[in-house]
């Protein structure tokens, strides 16, 4: 799916879906669902909710396929962004209330870096990170993982890590550039 050929096929399928081709949609679904579902489960940490969100994501694929612009990135990147946003929306709306309630207590009882030190110290997620994420510096990795897997904005990451906004933006940028190089270098 991440091979060059697979990438090209996904782009062709998305264009067919935009024309209303249901068979192309089914094929696209089959090729990509494990990836989408895995990401959504990772962000939501709840399979039942992840199922709902994954279904919503594929309905969006059907409805929004004509908005896919190959110049802006691969079809897989487009799909995973749809999935990530939807999952993060769910996290934020679900957590909004409990977060507000927990915020005061958490500020009182925990140093801000506690929740990320686990990540910094390299608690690996099962099955994850067999690749380039290892190459990131610990601070780059913490910023990227907090943002991507926990759905924090870079402003929230800055707050959580107690570093300036500019620093977080730099860590994210440099980390992604490094990941990009690793992925390019390691591609089959």
């Amino acid at each position, binding site marked *: 799916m*991440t091979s060059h050929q697979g990438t090209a096929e996904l782009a062709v399928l998305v264009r067919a879906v935009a*024309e*209303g081709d*249901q068979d192309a*949609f089914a094929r696209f679904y089959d090729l990509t*669902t494990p990836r989408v*579902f*895995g*990401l959504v*489960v*990772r962000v939501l940490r709840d399979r039942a909710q992840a*199922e709902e969100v*994954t*279904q919503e*994501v594929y*309905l*969006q694929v*059907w*409805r929004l396929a*004509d*908005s*896919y*612009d190959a*110049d*802006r*990135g*691969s079809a*897989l*990147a*487009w*799909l995973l*962004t*749809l*999935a*990530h*946003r*939807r999952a*993060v*929306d769910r996290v934020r709306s679900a957590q909004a209330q409990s977060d507000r309630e927990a915020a005061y207590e958490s500020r009182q009882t925990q140093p801000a870096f506690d929740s990320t030190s686990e990540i910094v110290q390299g608690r690996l997620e099962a*099955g*994850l*990170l067999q*690749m*380039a994420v290892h190459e990131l510096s610990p601070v780059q990795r913490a910023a990227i993982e907090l*943002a*991507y*897997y926990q759905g924090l*904005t*870079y*402003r929230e990451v800055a707050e959580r890590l107690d570093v*300036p*906004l*500019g620093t977080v*933006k730099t860590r*994210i*940028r440099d980390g*992604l*550039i490094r*990941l990009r190089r690793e*992925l390019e270098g390691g591609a089959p």
Partner: protein
Amino acid sequence: MSGTHEQRDDRGGEDGTVHDLAAAYALDAVDDVERTQFEAHLADCAACRRTVAELSEAVVGLSEGLEEQPPPGMRQRVLTAVAEEAPRTAPQRTAPDDQTSAGAQAPGGELTHLGQRRAARHGRWWLAAAAAAVVAVGSVVATQWGRDEPGSTVAVQEVLEAEDAQRSTETVNGSTVHVVRSMALQRTVLVAEEMPEPPQGQDYQLWFVHDDGTAVSAGLMPKDGDDRTEVVLQGDPAGAVAVGVTLEPEGGSQQPTSEPIVAVPLEG
């Protein structure tokens, strides 16, 4: 400067320039306001478009290795849902004044983006809904509404329970929008179920859509945070052939500034 949205400030400073948001945007680590602003910037900045395209491929790598098989029933549910929607989303005749919006192109999952990205389809669709409805009800609606006296307060419940209540429903993106009107009461009520909260700084605005495609504001949808929102439409509904919903800057707009999220035809 920190704590404010300084994306329009290109001069640099503590938090850098607008271009510096490219990576956070690619990682989907910006809030709704910043996303909207940055997408506007992307339209004008080829360098950032290139950066986002490149870094997005790095972000793809972040879900590698997480693959998990979804439950087997999901496939059939999704394909069925798509098959049911298919007639509406299949390519349609183009309305005469159809125009393609230059909305943001980057992928997005929220209604903001939905609204923008459905432009190509829904610009047509809005007019098509209006056109179809006017054939059925045009003159009747005009005369009925023509003697309306705006301003009298009629409870939502009265409209919903009116003997002559007419109901139309559309679903979009998991949300359901019902429009109920009573000729006798000369009032229209919109009921939205499971509509997500509008992004920060925006409101859902309601519109009476006329058969020529023009829209007249019917007020804002209250932000009550409930799963179900009921609102009596404001203003003069005379001649309206559909009720539309758009996302607008907080407080609403004189005219729609985005494509409709949904348009519910008023049927005779």
